[in-house]
């Protein structure tokens, strides 16, 4: 039996009715009693146990994983509210899934290792193609989890992940795993079997101003830059300016207000770019907090001694990112359309693109083919191997990027 893929979506106000409508939509497309895999993305209001139970009852998935998100990617646009379902029936593709909960009780790296082991145990097949995982957005050091996963999975297997959350305020996270809605968890999925896999991750942020050196860091916390508290980098650029933009009516810290938690949209529009071994390539880090001593907290690890820039991106470069990632996939598949594309798009891009952000994904289908199913979510951080010139980079936590996983 060839691989059958269906995508359903609903934004009916009643969450239960929406879950039902989306599941029935998928069921109608597949015309099958059971499904092998269901990936579920919902916005906060639609994450409820009855809805999950409804989806399970209708689609009877062997494995179900999912996450809440501020926006669901359905084909060529982002839906700001509702429930989206991707379901797969296949005897060419194999899946294995597992979760690790109560992350607060175990070291993050250990959690990554345990997750990889648990997923491998459930997977049971020799041929592994890609590993997909979701990580709680309230946990602040995703890089350590990546390190744990690399330890368990090796460095050759493509790994992509998404740091889940409900909004840019990071107040609420939920994961779906089989019959449960979980908090403080990480969930993994192994994909294997016949079919090529390609992961492409791009950002297109450009450095701004002079380079500075991170002279003291502690894991994911930047202590000082150029012998000064790290937050001074922002103060240097934004102090004494008029009020910054106020997107979507959200509260906005003034540029001079650099107290902890006050950066708000400035951190999204101007993230940090950490220099890498490859010239002119940068790892993007969005500050998620500023500590009282002026240290900047990020989600990914920051090595001391690294050069750092403030980064900027214009709208056309932002739109081009999607095209670049899709073109890389097309090249990889030698112009043959993939079976489906899973997309993780940083919500930062929404801030840059503004009103038209929800319709910026058309390029994927324009390049890969109008019939290719595209499904995904908006994230606060993505995990993938960043695109580098000429060599394979290790899997890392990324911000402000677009990451596409294509299964051919």
């Amino acid at each position, binding site marked *: 039996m060839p691989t059958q893929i269906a995508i359903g979506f609903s934004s009916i106000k009643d969450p239960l009715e929406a879950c039902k409508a989306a599941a029935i939509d998928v069921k109608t497309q597949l015309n099958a009693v059971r499904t092998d895999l269901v990936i579920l993305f919902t916005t906060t209001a639609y994450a409820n146990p009855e809805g999950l139970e409804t989806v399970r009852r209708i689609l009877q998935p062997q494995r179900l994983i999912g996450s809440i998100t501020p926006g669901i990617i359905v084909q060529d646009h982002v839906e700001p509210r509702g429930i989206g379902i991707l379901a797969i029936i296949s005897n060419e593709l194999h899946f294995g899934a597992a979760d690790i909960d109560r992350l607060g009780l175990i070291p993050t790296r250990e959690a990554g290792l345990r997750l990889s082991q648990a997923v491998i145990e459930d997977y049971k097949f020799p041929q592994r193609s890609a590993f997909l995982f979701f990580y709680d957005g309230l946990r602040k050091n995703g890089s350590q989890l990546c390190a744990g996963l690399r330890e368990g999975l090796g460095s050759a297997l493509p790994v992509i992940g998404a740091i889940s959350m409900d909004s840019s305020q990071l107040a609420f996270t939920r994961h779906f795993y089989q019959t449960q809605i979980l908090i403080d968890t990480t969930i993994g999925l192994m994909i294997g079997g016949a079919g090529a896999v390609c992961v492409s991750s791009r950002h297109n942020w450009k450095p701004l*101003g002079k380079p500075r050196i991170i002279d003291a860091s502690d894991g994911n916390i930047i202590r000082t830059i150029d012998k000064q508290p790290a937050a001074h980098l922002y103060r240097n*650029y934004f102090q004494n300016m008029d009020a910054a*933009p106020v997107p979507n009516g959200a*509260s906005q810290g003034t540029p001079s207000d650099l107290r902890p938690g006050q950066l708000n949209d400035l951190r999204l*529009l101007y993230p940090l770019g950490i220099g890498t071994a490859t010239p002119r390539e940068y790892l993007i880090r969005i500050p998620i907090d500023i500590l009282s001593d002026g240290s900047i907290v990020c989600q990914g690890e920051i090595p001391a001694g690294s050069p750092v820039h403030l980064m*900027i991106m214009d709208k056309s470069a932002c739109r081009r990112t999607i095209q670049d990632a899709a073109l890389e996939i097309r090249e990889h598949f030698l112009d043959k359309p993939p079976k489906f594309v899973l997309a993780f798009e940083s919500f930062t891009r929404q801030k840059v693109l503004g009103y038209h952000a929800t319709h910026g994904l058309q390029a994927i289908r324009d390049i890969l083919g109008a019939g290719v199913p595209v499904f995904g979510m908006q994230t606060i951080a993505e995990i993938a191997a960043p695109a580098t010139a000429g060599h394979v980079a290790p899997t890392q936590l990324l911000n402000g990027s677009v990451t596409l996983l294509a299964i051919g």
Partner: protein
Amino acid sequence: MVNVAYPVNTFSITPFLVGTSLILVTAVSALAYFLIGKSEEYKELKASFDKMINSFNELDEQAKLIVKTDLELNKTQEELDRRLKGLNTLQKLSRTMSMTLDEQEIFQKINKDLLSELGFASALVLTNEENGALLTRVNIGIDPSRQERIQAELTADTQFLGALRDGMTFSSLNSSQKTRARIVQLFETEHFILSPLLTQRGVAGALFVGNRYNAPAVNEGDEELIAILAGQLAQSIENSQLFEQVYRSTRTLETKVNDRTRELSHALKEVETISKKKSEFISAVSHELRTPLTSIKGYASILMTGKVGAIPDAVKERLAKINTHSDNLVKLINDLLDISRIESGRVEMKALPQNVVPMLENIADLLTPQLRDKGVTLKLNIPADLPLIEYDASQLDRVFINLIGNAIKFTPAQGTITVNGHPNLERAEALFEVADTGIGIPKEDLSKLFDEFFRVDNEINMKVKGTGLGLALAKNIVEAHFGRMWVTSEVGHGTIFHFAIPFQHKPKETKKTRKLTDDL
């Protein structure tokens, strides 16, 4: 200088010392020269480094400028996006509002989602009631107890109501410090817009939207957006109220029409009852009159024959008058009886499909002596392709005889009487006209012409005796054939009697008649 206390041979040492000194001087010179060179290089390097630092700093200054410009651009873009989103929301709202005329439904359209899309967290829609008080119709995000206080305070504030009536919008952007402080305290919101709901008939109420302290301040764009929303809301409310008024008027009118129809129906029934009683009375009286009249006429005839004895000429003359008057009376009674029978439906029309031409030719023959006596010409214009008509020949000929007989009576010598006939296919009927070139009928008499016993007051009628029942009878016969009859006339130019007889005796029900029946 170091003093060395060794014994030395001055003669052998001297050349050595000179040589050493030379070497030292040379080395020092070389070193000095080298150091001077290095110092120059260092200076150059330092200058380059300083230049680079300056370039970096300049780059940073430029970066600050870029950031500033970028932020301004972003700010403009965000404002534009907000405006676009707001307008889009308003467009959607306008479309949904225009789909209803129910006031309650209109208010339901203003919900939390819509408000959030417009960038506000709370809203209050207040409308003016007949007693002058403000009534809350929509409340989003405002505590109910506060809502009552707002209602009461604003209702009591005549100055505020007056300002609203003048079309004034209050906002945290444009209001005086005092007004602003009062609204902030009353609504417990930092940023607000309070806009009147202006209709053509005055202020229908007010729309309030607001945000708490940590939200962005309102700007002119927000004011414009809310003003548009208030305008649309006011327009919808006005439309709804107008519709309500029209609906109520229609209902009142309908009730009145129904009452009147009932009254008329009742009156019609009464008239029908009276008419029936009248017909029965006429019928009974006519019967009762005809019997003795027949005896009178019989006895008069016997007397006239002289079988009961010779009678003088004077008596004979009077008996002849009795006979003539009896005949007239019998005809009158027969006509009355016929009308009465037709009206009460006691006469069954034996309608058969047939051509009218032979019947008209017979009538022409019958009336030829009268026509000849009067010197009047009769023309029959009946097309050959006139479809067959279902009619009772014994009745319809009376109609033609009556009309043509009348025409002869009122047409002077050398005049012409024309009988036209043509089909009206649209209504499936045959139209007939009996036109004369007679004296015509005054306008005021036309409407009474078909009334029983009505006779036009003219010279001819004064000379020629008649009952005034002929036209009434003719009209009754036509209507008994599901037809209709009317008259047109011009004094001095002649009169045309028109009548229509359906091709089929029982007319088919048309859409129009069915609709009329349904309405009733």
